[in-house]
């Protein structure tokens, strides 16, 4: 079975890649992912804001309480060198490149335009095969218009594209007034790939302690419906590669995404839940299904049920919910009796 696919010009051995997650923090795990058959790995994100905060924190704590009391003019040794920039991340890319053969896609979350471009450049220099821009933003500012928010995405992409030659993908949230428009504009601005979609950490409430507590909920296959729709809509209509992420747990999920038009599917929650070896299972099941259904290659499958190629293109746009209701065998008498 020919599983190969191409994502942003990268030749991948299969459409099953590992999305950005803590699994990529250890070289040993990267090796496990490679051994399990992952075709590419998106590294965990380099957060500029975190670097800035840590730098400020380090300064604060090294200064705090100093030069106040004659016997304790400081509380820590005067270390002459700290790694307060992206050194660790860049070194990790280098080590990853040495350790595994699969393509390494770095992930960046900047907080200033200067940060996006400077770090992107350094990431390329460190040897990353591609870069994913993790534009993780919750626009809570009531004064920011939809146009402002969209412009920010485009500005970042354009600035980064000017600085690097490796392929650049943009990982997006689905929360735009007109997602299709944004996707098209990003593609026109040079996005080599679009990654659909970013799952945000969602806050929760601790009832006992009356506190808001953010925590991570791993995705379920339900989450794949949203990217599935938009990949299907975008397939064949924009120049960017399409990566599907969110809710891809089983071979069937990946197959559906491919059929909708994804060039690659990226697994995260399933790998965190079952371990890197889960990729082998998904691939095996995928091959079995493809063979059973007499497919020759993934290429053949790709986009076969996209909006462009499916028998009912409107199904991706219509309010499916309404149709579902209308086909439901509704009997008012039964409800009254209940």
């Amino acid at each position, binding site marked *: 079975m020919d599983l190969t696919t191409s994502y942003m010009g990268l030749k991948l051995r299969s459409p099953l890649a590992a999305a950005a997650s803590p699994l990529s923090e250890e070289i040993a795990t990267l090796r496990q992912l490679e051994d399990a058959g992952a075709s590419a790995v998106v590294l965990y994100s380099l957060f500029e804001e975190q670097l800035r905060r840590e730098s400020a924190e380090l300064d604060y704590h090294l200064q705090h309480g100093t030069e106040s009391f004659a016997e*304790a003019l400081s509380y820590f040794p005067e270390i002459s060198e700290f*790694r307060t920039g992206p050194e660790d991340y860049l070194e990790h890319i280098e080590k990853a490149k040495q350790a595994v053969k699969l393509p390494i896609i770095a992930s960046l979350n900047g907080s200033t335009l200067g940060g996006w471009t400077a770090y992107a450049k350094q990431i390329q220099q460190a040897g990353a095969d591609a870069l994913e821009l993790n534009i993780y933003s919750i626009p809570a500012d009531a004064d920011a218009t939809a146009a402002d928010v969209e412009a920010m995405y485009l500005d970042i992409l354009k600035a980064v594209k000017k600085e690097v030659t490796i392929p650049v993908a943009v990982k997006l949230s689905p929360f735009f007034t007109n997602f299709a428009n944004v996707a098209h504009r990003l593609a026109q601005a040079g996005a080599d790939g679009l990654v659909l979609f970013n799952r945000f950490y969602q806050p929760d409430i601790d009832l006992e302690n009356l506190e808001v507590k953010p925590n991570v909920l791993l995705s379920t296959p339900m989450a794949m419906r949203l990217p599935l729709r938009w990949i299907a809509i975008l397939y064949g209509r924009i120049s960017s590669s399409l990566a599907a992420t969110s809710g891809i747990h089983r071979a069937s999920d990946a197959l559906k995404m491919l059929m909708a038009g994804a060039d690659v599917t990226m697994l995260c929650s399933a790998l965190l839940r079952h371990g890197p070896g889960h990729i082998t299972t998904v691939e095996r099941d995928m091959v079995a299904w493809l063979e059973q259904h007499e497919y020759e290659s993934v290429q053949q499958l790709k986009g076969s049920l996209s909006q462009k190629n499916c028998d009912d293109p409107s199904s991706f746009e219509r309010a499916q919910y309404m149709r579902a209701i209308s086909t439901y065998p509704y009997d008012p008498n039964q409800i009254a009796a209940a």
Partner: protein
Amino acid sequence: MSNKTYLTVDGNEAVAYVSYRLNEVMAIYPITPSSPMGEWCDQWASEGKRNLWDTIPSVVAMQSEGGAAGALHGALQTGALANTFTASQGLLLKIPNMYKIAGELLPTVFHITARTLATHALSIFGDHSDIMAVRQTGFALLGSASVQEAMDLALIAQAATFKSRVPFVHFFDGFRTSHEVQKIQVIPDDVMLSMMDLEAIQAHRNRAMSPDRPVLRGTAQNPDAFFQGREACNPFYDACPDIVQQVMDEFAQKVGRTYQLFQYVGAPDAERIVILMGSGCETAHETVDYLVGKGEKVGVLKVRLYRPFDMKRFIEAIPASVQKIAVLDRTKEPGAAGEPLYQDCIAALYEGLAKGWGQLKTMPKVIGGRYGLSSKEFTPAMVKAVFDNLASAQPKEHFTVGIQDDVSQTSLPFDPEFSTEGDQVVRAMFYGLGADGTVGANKNSIKIIGEGTDNYAQGYFVYDSKKSGSMTVSHLRFGPQEIRSTYLVSHANFVACHQPVFLERHKVTQPLIAGGIFLLNTPYSKDEVWEKLPKVIQEDLVTKRAKFYVIDAIKVAHASGMGGRINTIMQVCFFALAGVLPRDAAIEAIKLSIKKTYGKKGEEVVRKNIEAVDNTLANLHEVPVPGVVSSTESLAPGVTKDAPAYVREVLGKLALNLGDELPVSVFPVDGSFPTATARYEKRNLALEIPVWDEKICIQCGKCVAICPHATIRMKVYDPKCLEGAPATFKSTDARNPEWKGLKYTLQVAAEDCTGCALCVDVCPAKNKQEARLKAINMRPQAPLRLDERDNWNFFLGLPEMDRRKIKVTQLRSQQIMQPLFEFSGACSGCGETPYIKMLSQLFGDRLLIANATGCSSIYGGNLPTTPYAQDACGRGPAWCNSLFEDNAEFGLGFRVSLDKQKEFAAELVKKLAPVLGDDLVDGIVNAVQQDETGIYDQRERVAALKQKLQGATSHEAKLLLPIADTLVKRSVWIIGGDGWAYDIGYGGLDHVLASGRNVNVLVLDTEVYSNTGGQASKATPRGAVAKFAAGGKPLAKKDLGLICMTYGNIYVASVAMGAKDEHTLRAFVEAESYDGPSIIIAYSHCIAHGVAIDMGVGAKQQKALVDTGQWLLYRFDPRRAGRGENPLQLDSSAAKAKVQEYLLTENRFKMLTKSKPEEAKRLFEKAQTDADLRWQFYAHLASRKLEGGAEPVTALAK
């Protein structure tokens, strides 16, 4: 700029610079003010910096200075090039080995920051009492007078010790030289190396102990041999002065700076001279230059090599014309014929004259005097006073200078206005808060000027003795000539007040000269500010025709993202106004320096600082000084007006930094001070204070328990007491069923609170409508201050609850007990003081505390005021600090003494039965004092006894009355930090615990030497970065509790109040009730951990610590074994999270991920293993079933 290399460093760094380059083994232990030398060496070694022999020195931190001396002795005996650093008590602990090292002619240099020895009080400051205590050891004593000399003589001592085989003490004045920042010329490495006598070093190696050429040293000798053997070393001491002078000459030839063993400066035909050593030489030199310039025939003889004392060179250095000599000693030897240097000079003059040495023909008049004890100022005015005294017909002998001695009339008067400083020297003073970065910025300014121009630069910094809200005063000088002014600036061209609050109490413009510049950071505009100044400040500015500038630095800092750090902003103002450098050049230099200083901490920090620089000048405004004074506002007193006279007139002056004005007569003769005086020093530190919402409060007492400064308290009282309450006084019904019908109030001492917000953090009660609000919430202090002052005073007047009615094992009841430890000078948010406060609540009225030196002895016992308090009956903790190392033994002494007196008193009581009556005797002798009721009853009986014996004349009655109070149970507590308990005092602690006596030990475990600035102890956990563990502590924390448990009869508890407060309470009650030795190891969060404890995070850290299993809560009670139960109760549950989750929340661990990420990973993994294994082991111990019926384990001795 010349082509010489300059550095702007303090004395400690200058000495460490040389020492590190020329040695290969360093044995270190922290003690102020010498600690930085060891810290530098440890840090350089951890960074892999090679010395001039091209190897990385081995730096070993020891458990005490005595240990360091022992290790050094061993290193020297086996041929190492080894040295050490210390001061004061540390030097005393090295004395036994110093005799050995000298007796064995082992070459080494001990670099000593000369510091006061503790006598009637401890002092961290400088004098020569420690140096004088080692003059008999056989070490050569070589003294430096300045930072430059300290570097130079460090090298000279090193070269001379190898050539002479005589070990050296190289000393320089603590703080005045060790901490003074000066621009100095650096000795090139090749010069240093060239001055080492390789043959002499080779000979030292060849003499080393080796099984290849074995010898035996350290023999025991008898009367037939010892004396001769002791005299055998004489030729080495005879040769030593010549060798030192030769080395000095070689140094002069290579470097250009000339030194002599006794260096004379002054008129060649001087008639009056002073002789002294140490930093005072510089001031004397400056004064002599000035006076000679005025035509006076005076001079100064600087003593550099004090031992071996070269009498010939000494007398040869004195001009023939000299008629009168004053020998100045910076030490005191009570009862002696004179202080040591004076006696040496007299002896040398007598002997030298007899031998015809030197140019003197007749014996001059020689007088001795004391100056500068504990860094007391020594100024040109005082030097002049000494010369004036010499000039008088009957000079005062054995005088003092610098104080007013109205008891023994020893002191010389001096004119404080006398000044020798020329116009060329720019003198600047800066009043700052510790937290605002003033000192750091000033050190930086000195570097900019020192290293960027041909000017010389000097900085000296005066710190507060309080650890929270402390004022720092920076004294800076810049000028084209070498600066010899080893005294504070008193005539300043420029004065900057970085905190407007200082104006309320301090006349900060006092030192300003006429026409000088005054810069004030103030929230008021240039148009408003004049009216806000106190009268004395206005008067000063008007009469001095000062130029006055203001800036709202806080506003600029906030706008630049700098928070409260205004250092860079004020630095820019200084350069813009003082004119030491052209303005633009100065600003460029500041920016360059910011990049250099902060670059390693990341771009963000650099960016914010540069932004602050750019935002400053537009906000700096000149304020025209009106011709008239309009203010009527006077300065606030140091203590409240209602304070007792002694507190007002003596301690209050100390609180205002005016202690120098106090005469001898106001001081106690034996160091005894009244307690309960901190309450009069209203410091108003908090910008925000907790405000109680009585409707939300569940009255749990947690906030009261955790408050480090005892500023939030609760009382329960009869509703009738509310009569006359201030309008804003809050009260609600008490919820505790035992207090039904009573009223409850939670009150904050607004003017004593430091605003740490720990109370808010631990408050479990949340507002149901607005969950961000709790039962206490932080609100701005200023608008509340006056009302809350009245409320607090009313609250204090409410009756305390009868202690017999308080349930002491339940926090919400127990916290009603009056704390007898309040308003200490501890850090805001301190993790130690809540434990001491709890102790004072539980047992304060019968408590004796032996306190090891450290943080707890400083916030507990540093003048001016005392946090240990008294109850309405005048009872309260009696507190004493002996030393650092001996605290357990000191406390055991209390116990033994009290037990003996109690036993004797009981014997006397029995003998007095006919007078006292059998019932009373029986009651007293057989009293059970297990609880408050028992103690109350016994106090009543003892009172009855005293009543009955009043006026009694019998021998027994006279013996009994002074000790009758010992019949009431005394609670003896031995308190100290981990540096004491795990390291320096461990031997004694072990012995005292093993004694079986009823002593209680409280270890305030901050896992680091907090008081001396964060050096690693054996309590420091694996992976923590600390001084002496710059690369992360490689080994796990010592398990002190486990070691103690192995005795079986010691009550051991491990507690963390922030994690489980009621557990801590139970441990205290159980420990005290156990009639045997007890130890409580109390985790104490600390500023040295790199957590914002002043923002209330301490308790949260403790919770994380326990939740991750990094700290276990347990109690080991031998009484349980007596009942056949497992004595160990594990009181914390299995870890709920990984250790790393906790580690990464504290900078002490996290910074390792930034400096040595691989090592951090390795050590953090090991830390997890440590926690896992420890938990498993303790769980195993706690789950054991005692088989075969356990033997009752009880105290061994009663």
